[in-house]
Structures are given as C-alpha cells and as structure tokens.
C-alpha cells in the first residue's frame, strides 16, 4: 500500500511539473525591446476551452487545445543584432534531444537557426511540438506539450484572429518568386 502511494505521489508530481524549466530562458530576454511570455498550463487551457463558444471556428480551436497539457511561448525582439546569447537556448535544445524529440525541420543560414521538433508517439501521433527559432534580432520559442495534430494547426487558418496559413504561405511564395526574378 505504501509503495502504491509513493508511486502515485511520484506520478502526480511528474504530471504537475512543467516538462522543462522555462525560467532557464529568461536570460534571453534581458535586453529585449519587446517580449511575449506565455505559460498556459492545463487548468488555463481548460478554462479557455470552456469560453470558446459554439461555432465551427471555436470547435476547431477547442479540439486542438483539448488534448494539450500546456503551451509555453517565449518571444523576444531586440533593437539591434547581438543583444542575446544564443548559448542560452542550449539547455532547451539539450533537453529536447535527451527526451528523444525528433527534429523534423532544421534550417540554418549565416545568422539564423530554426528548428522544429516533434515528440513521436507509438501510434503515429505527436506528443508535442517545439519550435526554436533564433534570428539576428529575434528569438522565438514555442513549446506545446500534449497530443497535437499538425492538420489541426493548419485548419486554424483565419480562425478567431489566428493568421491564415494559406494566405501567409502564398505571400512567402510570392516574395520568394519576386526575389528569384
């Protein structure tokens, strides 16, 4: 009985604690001109889900967030290059590697480095999504903990103030074409 209680307590603690200590990323934003810091854990997501209303848009947002345990966003904008230390992102990258998250996209250029990680689950689904993007004057970290379907994110196009994926990707395509010409 005692063993069961100890295991139960350990399990509860494991579920209650955030997957990664995001305070470790606070150093990144010391010189930031603008910063967005969002920590949305289970109860907050549940509360938000309850207030989404009843519409097609609301349902798609609801279905996306209902399977999540937390969303953590750290976004910093700087007024000049070199205002943050890229090494401050290393604890997160190391943690993601140690937890067997897979890199599905890893793009690098001279001054930019962006990586998208997913946590593969045995049933072919994803147990989470992480985006770590370091640019000259901007750092963005998105960490979504919980079962996520990439199609659900794509479906959110234009819903409830969320930018339309297709419109933006068309813009990106047009911009790339113009540059080519």
């Amino acid at each position, binding site marked *: 009985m005692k063993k069961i209680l100890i295991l139960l307590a350990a399990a509860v603690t494991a579920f209650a604690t955030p997957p990664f200590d995001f305070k470790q990323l606070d150093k990144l934003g010391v010189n930031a001109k603008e910063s967005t810091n969002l920590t949305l854990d289970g109860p907050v997501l549940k509360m938000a889900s309850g207030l989404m209303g009843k519409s097609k848009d609301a349902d798609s947002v609801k279905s996306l967030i209902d399977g999540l345990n937390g969303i953590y*966003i750290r976004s910093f904008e700087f007024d000049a290059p070199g205002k943050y230390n890229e090494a401050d992102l290393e604890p997160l990258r190391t943690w993601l590697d140690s937890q067997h998250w897979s890199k599905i996209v890893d793009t690098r250029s001279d001054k930019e480095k962006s990586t998208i990680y997913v946590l593969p689950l045995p049933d072919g689904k994803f147990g989470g999504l992480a*985006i770590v993007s370091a640019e000259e004057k901007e750092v963005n970290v998105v960490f979504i903990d919980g079962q996520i379907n990439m199609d659900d994110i794509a479906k959110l196009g234009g819903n409830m103030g969320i*930018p339309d994926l297709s419109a933006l990707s068309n813009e*990106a395509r047009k911009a790339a074409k113009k540059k080519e010409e």
Partner: protein
Amino acid sequence: MSFEDKNFEDQLRRSLRREAAPPDFAATVLARAAASRNVISFWRRPLTLALAAGLSIAALLPPTVAEYRRRQEEQAAEARAQVLTALSITKTQLLRVSAKVQKNTRRTL
C-alpha cells in the same frame, strides 16, 4: 417599671431575638441566583444570533457570488485571449520556418 412596660419590653425582645436560618436557606438562595443567571436576553439567544448570522450571509452572498463569477469570467476571457495569441504565434513561427525552408531549398536548387 410598670407591668405594661415590662410586657412591652418582653414582646420587643421576643420579636427581635436572633433566629437560626432554615437548613435549606443557602441552597434556596443559590438556586434562585442560578435561575436568574440562566435568563438570557433576547439579543443573546442562540436562535437570534443564528437568525442574524443567516440574514448577514444572505445579504452578503449574492454580491460575493456575483463578484466571484465576474472574476472567473474575466480570467477565462484572459485565458482565451492568451490561448489564441499562443496559437497565433505558433502558426506564425511554423510559417516563418516553412518559408525559410522553401527559400533555402530554392537557393539549393
């Protein structure tokens, strides 16, 4: 001293002579004192106090509940806005990374 005077004096002495209290006198006095102490004023009766407490709660409850609901709604609205912001940032970041990938792929091709 005449006979009448003596008689009067005797009567007076008899009237004023010390008499022992009855054996249950102390007990009776104490019982009566206790009984008078047990009489509680209307404002201190448990029923009155309970009624007053009930009325106070009834008066305070609706505004408290309304305030609690208002706060809950505010928190939920804030949570909703934060979730939409978080999803918006997520989507923007996915698009930016995908645009970078497209750009790099074209450059390579």
